[in-house]
């Protein structure tokens, strides 16, 4: 069947100038997707605006920022009130640091085992179990902190109080580990098998392949996993409130009780009269938290993106 060139040309030209059903469906789908995407941004902006509107007036007019960040006394209910959040910032940092000391080795080992060594059914079961772990409600972790780790820490280390930085850090580390494991395993899985084959063909041992080829290639993904784990630890509230002893003093060691930004907000917001200085001060703490988690997520995103560009 030979078409004459001229008729081909004309019918082609007509086809290119016609918006067919598929073209319109494409336009509609694109619009729908854009609306969904833009509304996500709108929600973030709205949340930010809400927190800002509650705390902004107070933060701007009556709050000393140097007192907020470096003041050691958080006494909003005594007269005159003081709003030093240093104890909570330090507590948050201590507990997060302990949590990462627990979670990073745990989750990376788990990810390497699941991704590189486990095969077949065992691998599938492990992945399901890890995801199940991630779904344990945080209040359950809090109870574990209170009832299991508390006496354990008391007897092992011979300290008076088992509700402290160590306890909360352990709990948070265990909580963050599953999601970090999943993310780290994704990063390992993204390393092409051809890299492993090429390295193994050179006579590299399994560990050498992992250490020299797989981990370096997966490093941006692993860093992102750690940062998101940190974000998770920062934001966790109820479990920390239960396990940390909630004491408004900057900890000096892992055996001191501590308080975090999130736990303080949760514990005090119910008692503070709406629109009072105390109430607004708690929203300022929320703002501080918001910026820290935002910065962490942004950093994680940059790390992952930087990889893709290079």
């Amino acid at each position, binding site marked *: *069947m*030979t*078409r004459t*060139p*001229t008729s*081909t*040309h004309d019918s*082609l*030209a007509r*086809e*290119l*100038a*016609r*918006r*067919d059903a*598929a*073209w319109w469906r*494409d336009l509609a789908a694109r619009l729908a997707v854009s609306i969904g995407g833009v509304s996500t941004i709108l929600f973030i902006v709205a949340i930010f605006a809400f927190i800002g509107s509650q705390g902004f007036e107070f933060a701007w007019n009556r709050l000393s920022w140097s007192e907020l960040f470096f003041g050691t006394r958080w006494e909003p209910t005594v007269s005159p009130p003081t709003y030093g959040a240093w104890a909570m910032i330090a507590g948050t940092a201590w507990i997060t640091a302990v949590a990462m000391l627990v979670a990073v080795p745990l989750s990376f080992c788990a990810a390497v085992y699941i991704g590189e060594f486990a095969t077949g059914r065992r691998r599938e079961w492990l992945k399901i179990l890890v995801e199940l772990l991630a779904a344990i409600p945080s209040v359950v972790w809090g109870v574990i902190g209170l009832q299991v780790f508390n006496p354990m820490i008391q007897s092992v280390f011979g300290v008076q109080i088992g509700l402290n930085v160590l306890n909360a850090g352990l709990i948070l580390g265990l909580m963050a580990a599953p999601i970090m494991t999943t993310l780290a395993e994704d990063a390992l899985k993204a390393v092409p098998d051809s890299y492993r084959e090429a390295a193994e063909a050179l006579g590299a041992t399994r560990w050498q392949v992992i250490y020299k080829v797989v981990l370096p290639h997966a490093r941006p993904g692993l860093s992102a996993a750690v940062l998101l784990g940190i974000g998770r630890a920062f934001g966790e509230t109820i479990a920390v409130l239960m396990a940390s002893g909630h004491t408004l003093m900057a900890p000096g060691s892992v055996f001191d009780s501590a308080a975090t930004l999130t736990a303080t907000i949760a514990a005090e917001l119910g008692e503070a009269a709406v629109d009072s200085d105390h109430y607004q001060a708690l929203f300022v703490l929320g703002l501080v938290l918001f910026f820290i988690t935002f910065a962490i997520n942004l950093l994680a995103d940059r790390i992952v993106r930087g990889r893709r560009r290079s």
Partner: protein
Amino acid sequence: MVTAAPALLEVRGLGIRYGDKVALQGVDLQVRPNEIFGLIGPANAGKTSFLRAINRMDEFVPNMRVEGEVRFAGHDVQHITNLYALRRRIGVVFPLPVGLPLSIYDNVALAPRLRGMRSRADLDAIVERCLRRAALWDEVKDRLQNLGSLLSGGQQQRLTIARALSQEPALLLLDEFSIAVDPVTTMRIEEVLKELRQELTIVLVTNLVQQARRLADRTAFFLGGRCVEIAETESLFSGGAKDQRTIDYLEGRFG
């Protein structure tokens, strides 16, 4: 050779940049209906960039800028009403085969289905015809439901060719199609390409100078982002090349 008919593809002053790097500049050429237009030249000559500009693949490369004009069937492709219709009518085969993660059958039936074809009998016919033309039918006819991405490299390349034919293109862009295909199969596909000239137009980018000689009606020589020379293939290869660089390249003195 048809000369009175309007050119299917008309390129004027085409320039392509990737950021600051100039990949192609000042290319003028016309591809006539039902011809095989060969494009030869060493690596980095701008051959692949040229193909990318034709069916607007520049959209997938963030810093790729296209200047000048590419007209397909009289339409400026940069301002075309229905970009998808353009891509439907221009089939592309990339140098590295891309077997979509679908069954062999579904790989080839994808484009007709996207066009709205539902009849199993029609689809069966198209799948068989395209696979036969790509010289793959005999090897896969008993396992059409297997995953296309699990075929060998050369088979995937032929699957890609079959897929490109299934969209019934008016223009077929072949970028080093034989790179992973054995010589015997390459010859079989070349025979098919010669027959396809009855139905469609082909732009054939190739590193194999002899392949251009065997297939192309006219051949263009690209070098360093410029089109050095365009001539009837026969005259180009039988001493008719005007530019010394073309002569050197054809004789294998560089590139």
